[in-house]
């Protein structure tokens, strides 16, 4: 029952995980770094957005310190997940050390769904730590495999298909930006302000500095006066 629940929730996420894994591997292949290094990002960092930023900045030869700071800043959101999940993951302390590795955007979403279903129907007994573990393992496996496949796709086709600079990454994420704009009207002001800041600061800052600036400004504006719907 638990396995079927996890597969039921993970399967709809797999196409985007696989596609983004392949795109990441493809971008990694174009960076000139080895497969070992590119795929190591997928199991050491294991966080898509930070990985994309890291590989993009490596391609642009941004300073390593700036790359590290930017990626760490992006992954700060995992702190929020930890805070929210603390009361849901009632396991022994040593098990938390293992489960923490699998706290991702996707597994957080699955736990959120599981938690809601359990609240709606108290008769259902869902073991949230096991759901986190199982869904995390499936996603880990697919993410790492698709990264390697993407790398080899570049090796096979890279010389015949050449896309400029960051085109693939921008084109991949623009859909999500549009989708966000459509789904969350209450966040359109944040999108507008951060986009405006991006355009203004784009003339002065390097990519990594710009990245951090946009995220800081977005967060500060939100903290000062903006209320978003709460999750979980």
């Amino acid at each position, binding site marked *: 029952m638990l396995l079927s629940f996890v597969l039921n929730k993970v399967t709809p996420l797999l196409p985007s995980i696989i*596609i983004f894994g392949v*795109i990441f591997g493809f971008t990694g292949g174009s960076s000139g*770094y080895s497969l070992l*290094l590119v795929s190591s990002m997928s199991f*050491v*960092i*294991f966080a898509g*957005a*930070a990985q994309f930023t*890291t590989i993009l900045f*490596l391609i642009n030869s941004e300073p*390593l310190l700036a*790359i*590290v700071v930017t990626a760490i800043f992006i992954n700060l*959101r*995992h*702190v*929020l997940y930890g*805070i929210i*999940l*603390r009361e849901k*993951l009632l396991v022994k302390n040593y098990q*938390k*050390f293992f489960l*923490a*590795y699998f706290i991702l955007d996707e597994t957080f979403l699955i736990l959120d769904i599981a938690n809601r279903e359990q609240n709606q129907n108290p008769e259902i007994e869902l073991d949230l730590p096991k759901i986190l573990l199982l869904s995390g393992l499936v996603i880990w496996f697919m993410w790492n495999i698709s990264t390697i496949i993407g790398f080899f796709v570049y090796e096979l086709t890279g010389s015949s298909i050449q*896309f*400029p*600079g960051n*085109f*693939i990454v*921008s*084109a*991949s994420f*623009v*859909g999500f*930006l*549009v*989708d966000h704009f*459509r789904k969350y009207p209450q*966040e359109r002001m*944040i999108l507008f302000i*951060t*986009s405006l800041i*991006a*355009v203004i600061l*784009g*003339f*002065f800052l390097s*990519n990594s500095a710009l*990245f951090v600036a*946009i995220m800081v*400004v*977005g967060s500060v504006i*939100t*903290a000062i006066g*903006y*209320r*978003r719907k*709460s999750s979980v």
Partner: protein
Amino acid sequence: MYSESSVFGAIFVIGIFTYFFRLVFLFGVPEILKSDRIESAMDVMPVAMLVALVIPTILFVGNSLMIFRPEVFAIVLSVPLVYKLKHSGLGLVFSVLFYLGFLII
């Protein structure tokens, strides 16, 4: 291009910090972090990140605003289609098709 060992060092540091962020508050949360404002600020990061990943990388080359390029047109043209079809994953498909179309033209 950096040496592989220095890049791996950077990846390792990012990985350690990421793991630390995921782990640290599973054990306990300081009162200061229970504020709704801080939660909202962290919650908005993915949105700001999307903007940061798309807007500067599309519009700028270095610190120069360069919008009259086929890749910019391709991405911009894909926006209304993605909006209409309500499927975020199609952004890449349409952009690549438009870009290849521009190259052929």
